[in-house]
């Protein structure tokens, strides 16, 4: 578009920009009176109106940016997604037996429910692979939703496994850990798939000189470190939080052993409601810490310590 322009002409600088505002002109009216009466496209300022979903989410769902070929960092992330996707698919199949699924509720047929469940997991994995390979957020989003759909089961207060080659079903703790690992894998899949898009955007911006990155190795290494540390910490903390129904009787036991025993044997506390109750208490504490502005105090403490 910038070819063959006279040297003094700077109009090419405005190609694709919407900075113009034409003054009202009677010429424009004359133009409209002619054969081609439609208003020129560039005469109307571009207004991006977000869709209902986009306005709920606070912006465009999928970026319209065209990425350049993936660099090594993005390729590594893609490989990471593929690995997590395989593990996640297997885990989803393990922790979501067809009994209790929507398909089983609707059809009442275990075989159909089994096929449906397998199909959903396969499609979720397929769209996840394709979305990551193509770096298309739409497919990744579909994959995320399908994985969530696969785990939606009714009447499953107790965790049951579709396939249990290691006999984990017998140990409540192992079962708990398995579910937490599954949940961490799911969250990591969300994060890694998003990371592929995020770093593709960044890489494209760097290569088109839109953004300059100083010391990219440090920034990337920080991300890599977080990819390892955060899931481990999240998993451990989640196990502690989910064990609240075990921890609570222990604490109560200090004051009254009878009450602690009653709590341990209470159906409510060892059921999903007990887990939820424990979680609720833990997050009330976390909320309180935020209300007390703990992050700021923490930052101040770290800065002082560094001084």
């Amino acid at each position, binding site marked *: 578009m910038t070819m063959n322009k006279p040297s003094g002409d*700077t*109009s090419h600088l405005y190609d694709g920009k919407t900075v113009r505002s034409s*003054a009202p*002109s*009677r*010429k424009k009216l*004359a*133009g*409209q*009176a*002619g*054969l081609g009466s439609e208003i*020129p496209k560039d*005469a109307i300022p571009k207004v991006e109106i977000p869709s209902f979903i986009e306005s709920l989410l*606070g*912006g465009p769902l999928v970026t319209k940016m065209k990425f350049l070929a993936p660099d090594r960092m993005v390729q590594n992330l893609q490989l990471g997604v593929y690995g997590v996707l395989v593990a996640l698919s297997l885990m989803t199949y393990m*922790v979501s037996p067809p009994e209790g699924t929507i398909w089983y509720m609707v059809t009442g047929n275990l075989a159909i429910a089994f096929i449906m469940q397998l199909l959903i997991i396969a499609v979720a994995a397929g769209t996840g692979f394709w979305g990551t390979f193509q770096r298309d957020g739409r497919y990744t989003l579909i994959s995320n939703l399908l994985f969530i759909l696969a*785990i*939606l*089961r*009714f*009447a*499953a*207060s107790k965790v049951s496994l579709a396939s249990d080659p290691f006999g984990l079903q017998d140990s409540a703790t192992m079962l708990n850990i398995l579910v*937490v690992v*599954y*949940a961490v894998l*799911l*969250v990591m899949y969300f994060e890694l798939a998003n*990371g592929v898009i995020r770093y593709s955007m960044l890489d494209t911006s760097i290569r088109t000189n*839109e*953004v*300059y*990155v*100083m*010391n990219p190795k440090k*920034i990337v290494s920080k*991300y890599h*470190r*977080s990819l390892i540390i*955060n*899931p481990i*910490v*999240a998993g451990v*903390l*989640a196990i502690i*939080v989910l064990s609240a129904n075990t921890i609570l009787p222990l604490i109560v036991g200090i004051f009254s052993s009878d009450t602690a025993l009653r709590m341990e044997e209470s159906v409510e506390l060892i*059921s*999903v*409601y007990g*887990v*939820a109750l424990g*979680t609720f208490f833990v997050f009330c504490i976390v909320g309180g810490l935020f209300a007390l*502005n*703990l992050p*700021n105090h923490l*930052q*101040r403490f770290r*800065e002082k310590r*560094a001084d």
Partner: protein
Amino acid sequence: MWSRKSAMLGSLAVAMYLLGLTLRNEQLVTIAVVVFVFLTWAALFGGHADVASSGRRAEEWSGEEGLALSSVSAMRKLSSARLFEDGELSVTLRMQNESPLPKILEVKDRVPEVMRIKEGSNYILMELGPRRETFIEYTLECPLRGFYSIGPVAVRIQDPFGLFHKEKEMHVYDDFLVFPKMEDLKDTFVKSRVPKIFTGAVNIRQPGPGSEFYSLREYFDGDSFRAINWAAYARSGKLMVNERERDAVSDVIIIVDSRAVAETGPVSRNALVYSTRAAASLAKFFLGRRDSVGVVVYGDEVVSVDRDTGKKQLYVILTKLAGAVARGNIPLQVVVNRILPHINKGSPIIFLSNLEDDPTIVNALRDFRARDFDVTVLSPSSLEFEFDAKRIDRTGYEVMKTERDVLISELRGLGVNIMDWEPDMLLSTALAGARGF
């Protein structure tokens, strides 16, 4: 501040938590808990502890930016505060981290929308070490005249997963001025026929005491011997003397139409852009010739630069032209009525306008001509700009072109030197055309 991603994850976790309770599904509750923990950990220990803080209890915390960003400061240096259109401006932004902790920062120095980054980048992602500073350098191409500001500097800090971020706008502004670019003119064909006796020597088209050669003539008694052209005497055998152009003050008045309608056309190609460039070029030429130049810019108000000479006057004029904004719709007659009593009869007047949407133009210019002013009109054709940009169709163009030609003919009939200035025509060509050369 929560990002869209963290908001989505948070909403998902809440939904799963509630759904898990409704369906009595422990897996869903577990996933929700893991997501909550993931978010909490990222917010608290994601490298920048204060990114998700929302309370306002800490006494030290002033402003919206939080502690981590309060220790980041910025300073900017421009290579020049004044430049001409299509010139380049080098910007150096110094970012300082006064904190003892390293920070990963996204820095964006906001530049005017019409500017183009020619070299470097104004958007940087960097890790700024403890008590370190860094310099960000980039070059801007400035294609359009005007008053501009660079700034503020937007700084963002976020956790590695992009879940939470804090933004700060550092109100560091630097102003600069882009003058309209000028064309070198060899001649404008505009000369005053009326001598003046005030200071400032300008050629008027009459022989008299001066410094510039005008013609040769035969020697008469009383002529100074110093004026004898001996070479001509040797050639012709007759005593010949050099006649010089009479030096005198010449007031040149340039009127620039900056009404809203003057901006009809694309941003970089419209009557106002052409008019300001022409006015700058003419002012430079006349001031170089030691004329006294005054400029009147009218749009929503009449802004005038009183006649004066010298380089300083050129910059005063350029500054006024740089600030000319297409606004309002004052008729030319109002301008003429206002300036007529203050300008010397017979002074050259150069009027730069697209001659659009003003029914008083003919009467106003007739007033000038009636008082024997030498009027030159250069009219950048908005019609051509619009047609080139494909904003009007052929029929509309033809109709308007005819209307414009009629107006130009009418003005020419009044003795106005007028030229329909087409977009690709040089100013010197347009001037020569207007003056009948």
